[in-house]
């Protein structure tokens, strides 16, 4: 406990780390306000820049991007009715109508306060929940890990916009991508086509840059010449006492919802904000205001999406299972910097872990200050012409991908996965499941192999392990639960109909 507290405190005493968080908060907000460039793309683009940094500093940079870009999406959602990130989509429902009424400053003030509160609550939960979960996960053996990873993969069904089946197909392809390279036990080369640069497998970073940044470039090219309607404002306005009175319950509730949803493997800020918004509406006494500029709607969506950031870090760091596209990149960052995600991290690198948590806390304070005093300036950045912005993204993508291994192959991987990602999105497949599948793929195969060894090749013995059965059951319910529920309720409705007839 003392070690954890001193590590948290050491963040404030490390001027270089504070400077990095400050600079990255600015970059994160800029990335967040630029439509199309979200936290995931931003983290993918910045990852190569962290290569020479100390591991804690590097992960702090990525986590700060995550936190600040998630908040910043609300700035454009309110001012130009275009969510800077998908997590801010629910903020447009009430943020833009309120801005149209001439209260843009008030809307942004509510968004900043709600986001900060949600973010801080989730970091506090992260500090307490992560070590507890790590203690439980410490006892996991390969069968439990295998089942847990299957559960994580099953949650891909609801990870993002694509339908459940499409997401699962993407996830399975992602897992297959992880089989490229030399097999771990036998060293037999799989799907390498004679290219020995693939011996260690596909490098995660170029695949991420391709799937998130390069494919986004191609998606955005469709909107190359579109102009946004921009609402001017004087300054960000702090909520009044009446506003606080109206929103505090919503903020607390949505922060809890967001944190919980974030903790669920593969559920991210977008889902959290949608549920935070709908719950705010459900519990509100002023339901008729929703969609017309309700401050409760803004607060519900914003506190939930930022609360999900801390929540999503729990499975990422404790179990090595990313909670969203951005945490998938943070997970890659942990691996690249030699921090092995999983329960051992909490034994071997306690100081580093709590410094990362502390950095997230500081990042929340930083974006509060910047949101209050500089949102107006940041909002102007969203008007940078896409014809200037996206060529810069192209340059950052290819140079960043090359920097990791000094390999030209990585650049071609960026371009190939950019086109694959674009085509996938065009046909309604989300790219995040492919990325998460790629990351979790090795974990599934290795733990399955180890389980088979433990049980002398008798795979069904996995089902004799209570925790493994629990996770597999959760996976089954996650995949088939909604359908079963629908069947059961339809059956009971039919029975009721029959009785009434």
């Amino acid at each position, binding site marked *: 406990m003392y070690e954890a507290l001193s590590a948290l405190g050491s963040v404030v005493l490390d001027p270089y780390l504070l400077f990095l968080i400050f600079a990255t908060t600015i970059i994160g907000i800029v990335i967040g306000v630029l439509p199309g460039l979200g936290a995931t793309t931003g983290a993918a683009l910045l990852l*190569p*820049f962290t*290569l*020479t940094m100390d591991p804690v500093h590097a992960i702090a940079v990525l986590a700060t991007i995550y936190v600040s870009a998630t908040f910043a999406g609300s700035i454009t959602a309110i001012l130009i009715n275009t969510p800077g990130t998908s997590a801010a989509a629910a903020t447009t429902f009430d943020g833009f109508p309120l801005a149209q009424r001439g209260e843009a400053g008030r809307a942004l003030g509510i968004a900043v306060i709600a986001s900060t509160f949600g973010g801080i609550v989730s970091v506090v939960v992260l500090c307490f929940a992560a070590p507890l979960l790590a203690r439980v996960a410490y006892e996991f053996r390969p069968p439990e890990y295998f089942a847990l990873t299957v559960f994580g993969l099953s949650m891909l069904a609801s990870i993002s916009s694509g*339908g459940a*089946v*499409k997401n*699962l*197909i993407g996830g*399975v*392809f992602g*897992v*297959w991508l992880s*089989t490229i390279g030399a*097999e771990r*036990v*036998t060293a*037999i*080369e*799989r*799907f390498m086509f004679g290219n020995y640069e693939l011996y260690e497998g596909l490098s995660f970073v170029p695949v991420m840059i391709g799937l998130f940044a390069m494919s986004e*470039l*191609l998606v955005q*090219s*469709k909107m*190359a*010449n579109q102009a946004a309607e921009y609402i001017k404002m004087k300054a960000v306005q702090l909520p009044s006492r009446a506003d606080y009175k109206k929103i505090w319950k919503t903020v607390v509730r949505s922060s809890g919802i967001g944190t919980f949803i974030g903790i669920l493997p593969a559920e991210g800020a977008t889902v959290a904000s949608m549920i935070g918004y709908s719950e705010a509406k459900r519990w509100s006494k002023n339901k008729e205001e929703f969609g017309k500029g309700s401050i409760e709607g803004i607060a519900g969506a914003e506190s939930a999406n930022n609360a999900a950031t801390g929540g999503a870090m729990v499975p990422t760091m404790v179990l090595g299972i990313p909670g969203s596209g951005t945490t998938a990149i943070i997970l890659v960052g942990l691996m690249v910097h030699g921090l092995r995600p999983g329960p051992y991290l909490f034994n071997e690198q306690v100081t580093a872990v709590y410094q990362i948590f502390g950095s997230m806390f500081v990042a929340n304070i930083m974006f509060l200050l910047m949101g209050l005093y500089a949102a107006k300036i940041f909002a102007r950045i969203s008007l940078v*012409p*896409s*014809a*200037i912005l*996206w*060529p*810069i993204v*192209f*340059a*950052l993508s*290819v*140079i960043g991908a*090359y*920097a990791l291994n*000094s390999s*030209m192959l990585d*650049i*071609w991987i960026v*371009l190939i996965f*950019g*086109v694959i990602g*674009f085509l996938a999105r*065009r*046909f*309604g497949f989300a790219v995040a499941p492919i990325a998460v599948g790629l990351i979790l793929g090795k974990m599934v*195969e290795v733990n*399955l*192999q180890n389980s*088979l*060894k433990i*049980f*002398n*090749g008798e795979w069904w013995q996995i089902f004799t392990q209570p925790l493994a059965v629990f996770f597999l059951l959760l996976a089954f319910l996650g995949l088939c639960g909604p359908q079963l529920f629908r069947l059961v309720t339809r059956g009971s409705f039919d029975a009721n109909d029959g009785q009434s007839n």
Partner: protein
Amino acid sequence: MVKQQIVPIVLTIVSIVIIYLALQLDLSPPMIVGDSMQPRAFPIFLMVLNLLLIAILAYQIFKTPPKQNEPINRVTWLSMVLMVLFYGLTVSTDMFIAITVVMFLLSLAWGERRPLIAAANAILTPFLIFLLFDNVLRIRFPRGILMNWYYG
């Protein structure tokens, strides 16, 4: 009908090709594999699972056909062609020449009407990124016309 089912068809072909390629993988001696599985087993299992999911997807599309996609627009095609041009220029000249040319053309393709602004962006951005990576991150870039001149 075939047009609507194009995605499941393509995915099925890809899955079958992967199964075929997996079947061509060497078998490892039982002494090494032990109680574990052959290297080909996992990818084959994945693709069989995928074929099941693709069958469900095909059924879903059959039941509720999705909206027809708009054709890919000119700017997107141009952007993809520029990626191919980037490959060609990198291989034949220099990565930074390729980035500059592609950035400039990308700006114009995306509707930038001020060639000077596009050119300034195309020259300054890679130059600044290069300075950062070369001086701070100590990355050595692939040799080409410019890099040979710079590295000597």
